[in-house]
């Protein structure tokens, strides 16, 4: 029970991650490296320092209090030497603009439960609950199982959001503790999937088949990224795959967005899709029409 989980964010009043008003817990650490990932701080399992470039005013206060000399301010921004930084957090206290953040915290299942449970009155009223998202929830299965068990023991509705990159036993153990499972498919073609996410999709599709053929309540999500996975063959293959394994299953198309682009700079990284634009309404409709060739409940906003 005391095994700690790595978490990078908790978001209350989530309306998009399952039924009702939900509290979404974002786990830290993910095996995938999707080109469009909107929360790069969710990828590493380790805590890390982030400097928000749009709010940093390069005042130099952080550099002045850094005991390791890991920070330097010049040219209107703050640079971090990540090899020197030991995440002491002095800079966070000193920053006048709250531009610096140590991303990631470690909590036991009980600690996390006590924290999120303050939202319980909202869950009870709305038929909501807790969603474990990521990062990747299946990458921390023992923690997830213990936490979900705690929620269920108090009659709290649980949901997970996963990319399904795990062995089938782990997937089944975690999924059966969720009242609602949302999983992503990013591409059906193995080669394309590897190129977009760095992962092989064989076990993902195996897990997807396992879940689609179960009686769990499901939502399949497909991030529609123009120029990456929006060609007809891919979409048609997705439609065939899903409907073959569960007729009329709900498939939600998630339009690509660039909201996370600024976070790459904060972590000293480069965004892979700087020129990609969100799909237009017509492009969304076209993709939905391709999926609708199959017996599916296609949704998008």
């Amino acid at each position, binding site marked *: 029970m005391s095994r700690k989980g790595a978490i990078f964010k908790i*978001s*209350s*009043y*989530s*309306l*998009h*991650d399952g039924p*009702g*008003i939900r*509290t979404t817990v974002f786990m830290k650490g993910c095996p995938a490296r999707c080109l469009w990932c*909107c*929360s790069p701080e969710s990828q590493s399992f380790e805590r890390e320092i982030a400097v*928000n*470039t*749009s*709010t940093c005013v390069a005042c130099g*206060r952080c550099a002045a209090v850094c005991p390791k000399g890991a920070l330097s301010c010049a040219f209107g921004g703050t640079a971090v030497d990540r090899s020197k930084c030991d995440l002491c957090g002095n800079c966070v*206290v*000193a920053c*006048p603009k*709250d531009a610096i953040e140590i991303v990631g915290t470690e909590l036991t299942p009980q600690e996390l439960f006590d924290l999120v449970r*303050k*939202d319980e*009155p*909202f869950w009870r*009223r*709305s*038929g*909501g609950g807790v969603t474990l998202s990521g990062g990747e929830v299946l990458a921390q299965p023992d923690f997830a199982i213990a936490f979900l068990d705690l929620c269920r023991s108090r009659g709290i509705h649980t949901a997970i*959001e996963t990319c399904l990159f795990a062995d089938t036993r782990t997937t089944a153990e975690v999924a059966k503790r969720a009242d609602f499972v949302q999983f992503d498919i990013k591409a059906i073609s193995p080669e394309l999937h590897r190129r977009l996410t760095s992962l092989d999709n064989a076990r993902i599709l195996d897990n997807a088949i396992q879940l689609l053929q179960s009686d769990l309540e499901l939502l399949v999500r497909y991030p529609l990224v123009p120029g990456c996975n929006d060609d007809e063959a891919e979409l048609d293959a997705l439609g065939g795959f899903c409907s073959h394994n569960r007729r009329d299953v709900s498939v939600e198309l*998630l*339009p690509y*967005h*660039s*909201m*996370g*682009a*600024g976070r790459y*700079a904060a972590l000293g990284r480069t965004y892979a899709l700087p020129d990609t634009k*969100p799909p237009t309404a017509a492009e969304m409709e076209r993709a939905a029409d391709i999926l609708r060739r199959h017996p599916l409940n296609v949704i998008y*906003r």
Partner: protein
Amino acid sequence: MTTTLTERKSKIDRIARMRDRMISNRPTELLPERALIATEAYERFAGEPAVLKRAHTLEKILSEMTLFIDDEELFVGHCSPQPRSPIVCPELGARWVLDDMDRFATRPADAIGVTEENKRILKDCLGKWQETSLDAIVDGLLSDEAKQAIADAMITVGGQGTAQGNIAINYKKLLERGLRGIIDEIDAKMEGFVPRDIEGTNKLTFWKAAKISCEAVIQFAHRYADLAAHLAETSDDAERAEELTEIARILRRVPEHPATSFREALQSVWLVYTVLHIESDPHAILLGRFDQYMYPYFKRDMEEGNLTRDEALTLVSSIWIKCTSIIKLMDSVTTRTFAGFPLFQNITLGGQGPRGEDVCNELTNLVLEAAVVARVPQPSIGFRYHNKIDPDTLYKVCATIKEGLGYPAIMNDNCIVPKHLMRGATLEEARNYCTNCVETDVEGMTDSRPHSGYVNFPKCFLLAMNDGVDPATGKQVGPKTGRLEDFASFDELLAAYEKQMSHFIGLIVEAYDLVDGAHAIYAPEPFMSSLLDDCIERGLTRQQGGTRYNFSGIFGVGLASVADAMAAVRKLCFDTKSVKPQEMLNALEKNFEGCEDLKIACEKAPKFGNDDDYVDLLAREVSHMYCTEVLRHPCLRGAFYIPELHSVSTHVYFGETTGATPDGRPAGVAFSDGASPVGGADRNGPTASVRSMTKIDHQEALQGVLFNQKFSPSALNAPASLALLGDYIRTWCDLGGHHIQFNVISTDMLREAQQNPDAHRDLIVRVAGYSAYFAELNENTQNEIIARTEYEEMA
């Protein structure tokens, strides 16, 4: 009866034309007519006691004032010879109007045109009132100490040169009995009555005055009927002529007699509503539980086929538009913070009936729809939530909130009904409360004077740290209660704060009681009083305490600001001792200049609104301290003073006039609004801010607690998001909140946040599966969100 779509569209177009005619195309202009007639009346009736003099003045105004009926109007009744033209009541305020005369036309907010000729006329007229208007009299009454506290922006004192509203008459009685029925009631009281003491003489005088006023209003309606009939004869538009003939018929019936149809009921209420403004021009004459007192007339007309739903929608919408035709003259300082000609007209929808049953009905829904059709800023709607609320109506309320009009505000019966029991009402009366804006009153029988005074919480804390001396000016403003370095513990500092705050509450009470008494002697309202229970029965005007429930209310301003300031001092000077008391006081004195590191430490101290007990429990403590102190004071007209945690926009004025505070706020910046967190300080989402807000005990703030919650349109666009907003409201009410209103974020607000990110750090924008603080996004992403919001606004 059904109407075609074309007919429906033509009705909606008519409403749009009425709105344009009323708002967009009409400049406001100050006209002297009412002031001149009142001046003549006061000269002619100089020897009469005030209540008779006021009745005769009203009679003279109503029989002489210029009447007009606007094109396409369905209801008649204006306060002035043209719409959106404020009236002048020289008997209540002469000095300040004279002082402001040359500023009205040029002031930055709510400019009011006035011709040179009218300016001259008004100056001549008001000049005669310099020593005798209510504001002159009050000026002679207030103590120097109170005046000094007002000048130091520690307090404000209401009602000094104007009538005070925040009151709802007994509309149900008006409609059921008509003014003739009221006159009969007065006659019954007077018949065979022989005064045996001064009290009896006073009663008789009031009854006479009330009767004169009611008769005058009946004659006023007949004057309008004559005008309508005349216009009908001369109109070459047959359809309009028919409408005018019907208007004339209605005005010969109401408000004199009981209303027999929905339309008569609306006209009766509107004409009387107009006269209440003409009588003394207060702000916030409330329209009460509109969907209750109007419902019998609506229901009968609908059932008997005399009214279609679309016709009813047109009628209600046109009353809404007429509400914007009334403008109250306000002084130039007030208009800086109350821009947009607010009159605080409020109506109440929903709630419980006498047995605790839900009383939402078809009219409730229709009124919500009319608000969206009329799209005018007033009247604002307060919707009464309770546990048995009709879920469909709650859903429609949420849909109306999404329209971004800023209303309906939600009032929580679960919290508010017990307050009225604590205020002395019976259970049935308590369930019949109506809303002001945040305040609530038992309809038709309460005079609660919420604007008796405002107290500046954060400045009281500055004085508590500094022996009563304002650190920004070095001036002794409050009592000597010790300096920061003298206090061995934070609790001692808190005790000093309590002394400062109590001192200034005491000054408000002393000053307002004088104002209150002046209103009773110089400015009684015989007409309004005749429509309030139990004025006729007791033979007293409302100014003399004739209403069944009488209170004076005080606003506590800057609760979150003071809690944040206390948390910073507690943390830095007492817990960590990282800042010496003298350093803190020096920094405040210098407005943090040269003390940037200390300012940052102050900014980083815990802030109210994030579900952090360290600061939230200080807010609870201050709130409790404040409520206890206010409730200790009896008020002049009977009961006692009641506390409210709300600021209207005085938090801006108090902020402008207060130096730097230990929460890191520089001098001059606005304080927190109502009991809401400081703008930008609540950064843990809408459930955390609700938890902070409900740690305050809303129950003991008998007058009310305001909470302003911001939502982005995307949070209201998800599937089922309106139902979830309903669940959010239910949860807020479960947790004991008094009031909540929603500010749906507009593109204008996002652009402002882009320019000024520090003030909007709490602004959360949501996209599918991802949410972020707007201020932390890069510019392009922000632009993308602005574009998206624009799209959502159109959708």
